[in-house]
């Protein structure tokens, strides 16, 4: 696939020197300004894979990563890479909404403040534009100083998206962002994800296949740490080439 924003080449990963591989020889491309969904039964390594893409696994002592992860063609595991800069480029939204117990404004401004932005009006602009992109501005514009934990679960998750957007990432990683939300809040996030791909490249993990079908351009199916198949979403869901994919999407296991 041409124009791959993010690409893995034979990526293998184990959580410690003598642990079995949690990921085995994964090669996928995520095209720029597209949504790619990662599906598979739980424990198959979807989160592990996603966390390799912004090097969040670095915190686990003793991980082994083999193969390459290329962002715009350059390896993010190269020794000269500044991991904090990488994580700003590759933002992440987690499974459970995890706003800081600060005000709504402070949550969104956090990343910019780390970057040294002190100018109040500049910060206000960024807070507004990020919240707007996350579809939350209208709901919270009058209560920016209220604690973020006073928001509903769905709003908190959109706040987390706004917080990630505020440092102008290029890629957004989302790890089952709707699994803790009700159907209405889920629909809101799904709509948002479709909006976001205009400006960002999105990699989203989900174990909800309808969700993958609704929002993604491409889909990758994982099983026990291996990539079974990846390709355009319509193809995966209508004419899967691997029988295991077919079994999974028709609900025969998982």
């Amino acid at each position, binding site marked *: 696939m041409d124009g791959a924003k993010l690409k893995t080449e034979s990526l293998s990963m184990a959580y410690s020197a003598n642990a079995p591989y949690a990921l085995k020889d994964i090669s996928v491309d995520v095209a720029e300004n597209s949504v790619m969904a990662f599906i598979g039964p739980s424990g198959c390594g979807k989160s592990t894979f996603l966390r390799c893409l912004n090097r969040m696994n670095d915190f686990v002592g003793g991980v082994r990563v083999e193969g390459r992860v290329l962002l715009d063609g350059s390896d993010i595991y190269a020794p000269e890479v500044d991991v904090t800069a990488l994580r700003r480029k590759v933002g992440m939204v987690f499974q459970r909404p*995890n*706003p800081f117990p600060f005000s709504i404004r402070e949550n969104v401004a956090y990343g910019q403040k780390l970057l040294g932005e002190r100018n109040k009006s500049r910060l206000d602009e960024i807070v507004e534009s990020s919240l707007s992109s996350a579809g939350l501005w209208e709901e919270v514009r009058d209560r920016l100083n209220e604690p973020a934990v006073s928001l509903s679960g769905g709003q908190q998750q959109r706040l987390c998206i706004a917080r990630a957007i505020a440092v102008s990432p290029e890629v957004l990683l989302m790890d089952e962002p709707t699994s803790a939300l009700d159907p209405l809040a889920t629909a809101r996030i799904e709509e948002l994800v479709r909006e976001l791909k205009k400006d960002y490249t999105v990699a989203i993990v989900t174990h909800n296949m309808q969700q993958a079908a609704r929002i993604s351009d491409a889909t990758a199916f994982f099983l026990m740490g291996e990539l079974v198949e990846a390709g355009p979403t319509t193809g995966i869901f209508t004419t899967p080439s691997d029988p295991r994919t077919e079994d999974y999407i028709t609900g025969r296991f998982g």
Partner: protein
Amino acid sequence: MPKSAYGKMAASGARWSEKAPRGIVTAAALSGIWLMGFIILFLIKEGMPILSEVSILDIASGNRWYPVSSPPRYGMLPLFAGSCAVTLLSCVIAIPFGTAVALFISDVCPERAREFCKVSLEILGFLPSVVLGFLGMVVLAPWMQAKFELLSGLNMLNASFLLGVMILPTIATLSEDSLRAVSQSLRDASYALGATRFETMFKVVLPCASRGIVSAAILGMMRSVGETMVVLMASGGAALIPRFITDPVRPLTSTIAAEMGETPVGSPHYHALFFMGCLLMLFTCLLNMLVMKIESARRAK
């Protein structure tokens, strides 16, 4: 109506073996509360008569504590100032240090070293205060005296340092608990936004645990206010308002401990000492209420 009928039935139907434990626990709790009330009443009863000898104003503003001169003077200001000064200085030493130790254990040191650090802290907490006081007298005092060319190494700084060491485990252990209670998911959120380890520690973990750290600090302070042996041994014992941290002081606790044995029961001096006990109790009660308030606000969040 059906509810009360059921209650009656249950009460008459309950066997002795079921009621007994409840009764014993209730009796124990009640006697504990009763004992508490009795102690407080006793303190007040023995402390208040001093107010018929001297006015509260003289006690509060009097600069001279000469309880056995004639006429006696019962000015408690220097003693009160001594208690406050020693306590505050010990907190100034122990709070930053204790918080730093807590942060180190919760967020910096490798998993394997964590238990070792916690056990070391506990051992420090087990040190009897008389041992600390002894170290202050025979090690710290001569060293300070020589190093800073002081008249005496038994002074406020010495006592505060020892108190700081004494309350450090309390502050560090309790702070560490609240730092560890900060969810890993918040740390992850911070890292994912490009924060370094230190930025995450100081901008997320520490603020999120701030209430717990404040109450840990106040609990440490409470121990420091009430501690007697260390200050008795190391503070120098001069009833003067300290002007400098190397001045000797005579806090309330060590005054009570030093003088109670030598004063006739029922004398004004005796009542004055009990009055100090009341003051100390009031002070620790206030600190305790503050902690409870912080804790309940924390739970409400």
